[in-house]
């Protein structure tokens, strides 16, 4: 299948869905993470357990929800619990395998910002929604997958506010802070895939999407981007993956 047949966003969503293994438990944010997680569930991972912070455990929506509290999530969940229960019983003790997050800014150690950009905290240039569930998802899930479009505005040398900790300032920071989860394992973008270097925990380009060059990825990164020795290229979306993604998007449009 040629690049003309699919968009960069579709490639990104498919690559993110492929990260989710069947049978794992995934804490899902709304937007791109929710789309990718549901794509995984209707393709290769029918036993993927989706947890939404609204209290829906094991949601199996037949259309994409607009928000984390849409009725379709409650109607199709194994259990609907209170928000304190989601965080205290299910997330905090380490019962969730994968946390799936987006961000407005990300730095080379996978720290995420969804709070403020520019200026000061009291008088920011841009006020973003804030933390929501992200700090504790990033701290407590077995591992974290981040999905975010790559640009110099987003991939920044220093995040303006640490909303959610990745690897802090380096390899030992998570242990020093007492964070129990493993931290960001994979960052999926519209250009490729980044993974932390095992020694330095700095995010390194490990895969490109078809048709994307290293120069393009470097130009969209606000720090000197390291490239893995074994850099590979992702398989393009299969016709089945694309059809499933477009069907999901169509049902969400049809019902809203």
């Amino acid at each position, binding site marked *: 299948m040629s690049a003309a047949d699919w968009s960069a966003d579709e490639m990104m969503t498919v690559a993110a869905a492929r990260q989710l293994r069947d049978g794992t438990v995934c804490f899902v944010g*709304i*937007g791109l993470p929710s789309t990718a997680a549901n794509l995984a569930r209707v393709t290769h991972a029918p036993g993927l357990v989706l947890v939404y*912070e*609204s*209290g*829906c455990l094991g949601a199996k929506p037949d259309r994409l*929800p*607009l*928000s*984390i*509290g*849409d*009725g379709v*999530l*409650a109607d199709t969940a194994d259990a*609907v619990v*209170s*928000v*304190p229960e989601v*965080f*205290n019983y299910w*997330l*905090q003790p380490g019962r969730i395998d994968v946390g799936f997050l987006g961000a407005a800014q990300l730095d080379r150690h996978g720290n995420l910002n969804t*709070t403020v950009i520019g200026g000061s*905290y009291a*008088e*920011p*240039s*841009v*006020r*973003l*929604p*804030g*933390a*929501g*569930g*992200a*700090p*504790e998802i990033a*701290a*407590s899930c077995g591992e974290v997958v981040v999905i975010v479009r790559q640009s110099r505005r987003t991939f920044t040398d220093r995040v303006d*506010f*640490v*909303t*959610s*900790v990745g690897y*802090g300032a380096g390899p030992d*920071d998570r242990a020093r*802070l*007492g*964070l*129990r989860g493993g931290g960001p394992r994979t960052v999926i973008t519209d250009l490729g895939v980044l993974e932390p270097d095992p020694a330095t925990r700095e995010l390194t380009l490990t895969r490109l999407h078809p048709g994307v060059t290293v120069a393009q990825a470097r130009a969209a990164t606000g720090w000197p981007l390291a490239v893995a020795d074994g850099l590979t290229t992702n398989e393009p979306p299969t016709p089945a993956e694309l059809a499933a993604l477009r069907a999901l998007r169509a049902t969400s449009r049809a019902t*809203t």
Partner: protein
Amino acid sequence: MAKIVSLADGIAELVHDGDVVALEGFTHLIPFAAGHEIIRQGRRGLTLVRMTPDVIYDQLIGAGCASRLVFSWGGNPGVGSLHRFRDAVQHSWPAPLELEEHSHAGMANRYVAGASGLPFAVLRGYTGTDLPRHTATVRTVDCPFTGETLTALPALRPDVTVVHAQRADRAGNVQLWGITGVQKEAVLAARRSLVTVEELVDELTPVPGQVVLPGWAVTAVARVPGGAHPSYTQGYSVRDNDFYRDWDAISRDRDAFRAWIARHVLATEVPA
């Protein structure tokens, strides 16, 4: 036993200028009609508390009712930013808005502590983030058994909590179900509470998975059918996603916002 009141009387009696007010609801059961009544009655200087201040808080902030916001995520879910909230933070319009910012886990546990009659909540959270640097109500406490350092946050005790629910009986016993968020905790943490309901019935039929707030734990109940719109009430209505999308354009512009409030809130008949 809860008093059965009209929405206008309930807001007039229970919500005062300068109060700490929580209108809770986690996407589901958001008490929009009660928020509109607060705007109509012209409350000022409120500290608004909510895990997910969404469109109704955007409207209250833009209408000038609030001076402080205690929250963990302020956005239009699935759509984008709250523009009235952003305008207040970035440009102090129509008034400066002081922020006390937490995470969801923090806010949920603060309500639990309030409902439990405890002075503070304890959790693993916030560690390594920039939140404690800007939020004075984030501290640490050492576990007396293991010595582990944990995060401590003060209990939330709103002066008044307002929630929407499916139904109540004439003694004010309330049933609510579906996504229940932190509504139960927020009501039990508050000094006073107002529950707006879709229907008042003579006798409550038991519903599996329901949450019941006994009438003696609630201050007042008002019958407000459709009181959650454009949010939804499981079993009664579906979420009006088109409104949430439309709100993005309405709220971007100050004049368009004012015109919308004038037409759809201020000029609206107060429900009896």
